[in-house]
């Protein structure tokens, strides 16, 4: 069950999905090869084999099928480990109907069906009507493919016409009286204007709305909560878009600049920031600041990288690595990060200040690592703690350096001298770290030998004590004897 590597087509390390071309008449690559039962044509095959009699429509209009980069393992010709892992029931041969062949049949048919019309979403019910297999197997495979973006993953997916209406004349299902279903004809809302229309209830979104990039859908809060979205989506596909502030007054460039200045100067003192900006409440400032689109202005890098890029920019502006306000600024872009835990951590560390946060992290790490050790090391920890703080400041520098150097290397802001500087400093930091570690090791060894000595002493003491005890006992006995003898002597005498 080999999985073929996808072709090296357009592989920038970006968040954009990988593009796998459907068979055009010139390039036919294995993984995108005709989903029809055509003999797999590798890229080495002569292009003279013209559009092989594929049941796929018009190979001349080679449509691009988008699949996300995390689904790169997929290939039509085989079953990859990922599939075996996610759908084990097909592969452990415990039930006769669930076997790899059936799985492949279901999977290929679903994908074929979807790719026949990749711009529209395919529903589970459509698929299961056309497959001769039990519906639950079909559903599992469908969900799997959906989750991995191998079907229904088209960022520019327009709404498809209601299958319900189409089927009216064909099958014995009768059309619903109210054909215009909820989320079917959602026109992608104009993002440039500040009006957000909910895709399902057609009301203007006021407070907050939920946008899904996956299928270009916007729902108002109520519809989102009610779960009024399509089959392929789940609640995690939506991101929250706050509207209230922005709707009321848009932030002009000047105001944004003022805001940034103010934050740089006053850091966390939002009162002063609000004063400086003029005309905005504290809350407004904070919310707008968090929402500042830091990364999108810069070309295609990931959110995290863009956050770090902002870090770099800020550094250049401040030109002082350890200015706490700069650092606080730098950490807040992380709040945009999609991971809520990261956002939380970033926020807390921004509040607490870098040094303290680093020290806390250090201490936590050391505590966790030392859980198994004995109590002899307890006092080491305290010693360590002091050292830790020192380390923390250096590591924070180092990590910042690392990030900025990483970022510099990613080529977003190419500045050669800075790069060289940064690399040198990185080197020194690494050396310092090494020294620290070595010293720690030495100290550990010393303490170790000390402990051994003490232990030996204790042993000796114990022996002495034992010896004393024996002596005492002997004395006691001899005294008692003499006493007895004396008593007897007086009695007889």
């Amino acid at each position, binding site marked *: 069950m080999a999985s073929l590597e996808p072709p090296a087509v357009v592989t920038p390390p970006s968040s954009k999905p990988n593009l796998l071309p459907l068979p055009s008449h010139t390039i036919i690559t294995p993984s995108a090869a005709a989903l029809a039962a055509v003999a797999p044509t590798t890229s080495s095959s002569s292009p003279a084999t013209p559009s092989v009699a594929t049941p796929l429509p018009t190979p001349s209009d080679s449509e691009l099928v988008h699949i996300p980069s995390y689904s790169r393992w997929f290939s039509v010709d085989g079953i990859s480990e990922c599939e075996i892992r996610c759908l084990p029931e097909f592969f452990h041969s415990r039930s006769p109907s669930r076997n790899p062949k059936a799985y492949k049949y279901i999977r290929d048919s679903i994908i074929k069906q979807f790719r026949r019309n990749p711009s529209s979403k395919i529903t589970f019910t459509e698929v299961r009507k056309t497959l001769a297999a039990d519906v639950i197997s079909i559903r599992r495979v469908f969900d799997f493919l959906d989750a991995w973006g191998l079907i229904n993953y088209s960022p520019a997916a327009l709404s498809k016409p209601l299958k319900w209406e189409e089927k009216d*004349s064909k099958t014995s299902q009768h059309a619903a009286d109210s054909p215009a279903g909820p989320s079917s004809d959602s026109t992608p809302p104009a993002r440039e204007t500040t009006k957000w229309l909910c895709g399902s209830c057609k009301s203007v979104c006021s407070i907050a709305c939920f946008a899904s990039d996956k299928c270009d859908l916007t729902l108002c809060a109520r519809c989102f909560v009610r779960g009024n979205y399509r089959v392929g989506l789940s609640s995690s596909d939506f991101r929250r878009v706050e509207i209230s502030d922005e709707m009321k007054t848009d932030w002009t460039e000047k105001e944004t600049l003022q805001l940034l200045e103010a934050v740089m100067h006053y850091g966390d003192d939002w009162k002063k920031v609000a004063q400086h900006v003029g005309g905005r409440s504290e809350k407004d400032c904070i919310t707008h600041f968090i929402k500042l689109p830091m990364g999108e202005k810069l070309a295609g890098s990931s959110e995290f990288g863009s956050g770090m890029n902002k870090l770099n920019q800020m550094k250049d502006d401040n030109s002082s690595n350890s200015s706490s306000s700069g650092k606080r600024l730098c950490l807040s872009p992380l709040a945009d990060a999609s991971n809520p835990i990261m956002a939380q951590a970033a926020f807390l560390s921004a509040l607490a200040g870098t040094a303290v946060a680093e020290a806390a992290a250090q201490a936590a790490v050391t505590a966790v690592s030392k859980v198994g050790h004995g109590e002899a090391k307890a006092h080491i920890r305290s010693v360590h703690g002091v050292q830790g703080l020192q380390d923390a400041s250096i590591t924070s520098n180092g990590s910042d350096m690392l990030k900025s150097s990483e970022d510099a290397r990613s080529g977003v802001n190419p500045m050669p001298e800075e790069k060289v500087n940064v690399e040198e400093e990185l080197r020194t930091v690494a050396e310092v770290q090494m020294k620290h570690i070595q010293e720690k090791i030495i100290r550990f060894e010393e303490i170790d030998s000390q402990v051994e000595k003490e232990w030996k002493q204790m042993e000796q003491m114990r022996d002495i004590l034992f010896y004393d005890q024996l002596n005492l006992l002997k004395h006691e006995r001899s005294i008692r004897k003499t006493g007895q003898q004396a008593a007897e002597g007086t009695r007889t005498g």
Partner: protein
Amino acid sequence: MKPLPSTSSKTPVKFRMPTSENLVPIRLDIEVDGQRFKDAFTWNLSDPDSEVSVFAKRTQKDLKLPLAFATQIAQSIQTQLTEFRSYQGQEMLTGEKIVPIKLDLRVNHTLIKDQFLWDFNNFDSDPEEFAKTFCNDLGIEDPEVGPAVAFAIREQLYEIAIQSVATARESRNAKKGRRGEYSSISSRSTGAALDLMKLFSNRYSVVRKRKEWDVYEPMVDILSNEEVNALESMEERKPR
């Protein structure tokens, strides 16, 4: 291929679908507020019952049906499943059973008429495979035909299985111990026979008589829209 049991061993077998997978044919015909929803599919018994409601919800969402449908669909599926399960503990007589399967269905624009013999005793049989081959051989383009054919076959097999359970029960009740006789009676009553030649009362050859060729030949017809509409309206009128 599993060796078929000889005619002499007519030990009753536990009820199950006589196919390689124990899939249950489920037919839905639900009417809510004047909207009718008809559907047919196969269900794997080994799936947990929680799947029923999930599937019902999914179907309702996909087809944009009103919410009431979801519960109805789930209920209908459940009842059919429990019915199937109630048969499961019981026994059915199989013996040697060749049953005729008739296909007479219309799927979208395709009309199919066919008849063939199916070995009920072959528990390795696979209606899905048959349907796939059927569609491939006849060049049927509509992908919904295959599952419909498989479903029709399954349904009929299910009916026959239920019948054989009933006859097994009868024979047990009669309880004369002369099993051979009763199974032959039961098989005669369901139309199959111990002997192909006997079944077709053709003493001279195993080849089918010429006049029966048409019956056993598959017929596929592609209808036009008007014909489809006409047929649909007729169908609606019939059961109502």
